[in-house]
């Protein structure tokens, strides 16, 4: 079951599968976020282009005020998706093993 919620220090915790069926839930949550934001993806198992769209839209909005999303604890499967998508050039990404 996909979950997105605030954790400690206002880090946003994202869990399970962020697919097209869950993109609206994720976008609705992230639309409330203002300023710099850290997304902990340590428990995110899967992301599709619908999820990437949510991240991109949110990042662009936050960068409008000079902030943005930082993506941490990214597993290697999802890091591959980010790399193929060119997201590694747009976001600050911290892999899970660092």
């Amino acid at each position, binding site marked *: 079951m996909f979950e997105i919620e605030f954790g400690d220090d206002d880090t946003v915790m994202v869990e399970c599968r962020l697919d097209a069926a869950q993109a609206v839930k994720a976008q609705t949550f992230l639309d409330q976020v203002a300023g710099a934001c850290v997304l902990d993806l340590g428990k995110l198992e899967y992301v599709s282009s619908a999820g990437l769209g949510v991240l991109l839209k949110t990042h662009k909005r936050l960068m409008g005020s000079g902030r943005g999303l930082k993506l941490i604890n990214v597993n290697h499967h999802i890091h591959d998706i980010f790399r*193929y998508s060119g997201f590694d*050039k747009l976001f600050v990404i911290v892999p899970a093993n660092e």
Partner: protein
Amino acid sequence: MKQKFKRSFDELQNIVTMTETVFREEGIQPELRHVVDLATEELFVNMVTYNTESHEDILIRMDPHEHGIEVNLTDYNVERFDPTAASTVDVDAPLSERTPGGLGLYLVLKMVDSIHYEYRNRQSSITFIVDRKE
């Protein structure tokens, strides 16, 4: 294994369940799951989103193939749309020029080992193969 799915994103979890079953029963390498899940979702979502004139279910078939899996999606009573001919995405563009559009099919074409499209009798059929890298 083959199974029909309604034209709804709510079916994505059922597609995942089908994929899990095929991988388990056929002993397919688990490391291929991510690419198979991604390609299947992107192609299914594309059919649901753009082939809006059809009300028929979408058929998904999954079979073992050499060291991996072959997946076919068939959409009935639709116009021709060849996802393998989708325009490319400039993944090097700066943030201000990036939009999510087209990224799904771009990733599919990048990540599967082969992909084939066929259109006949108003049926769109797309088949992709994901194999273990030797």
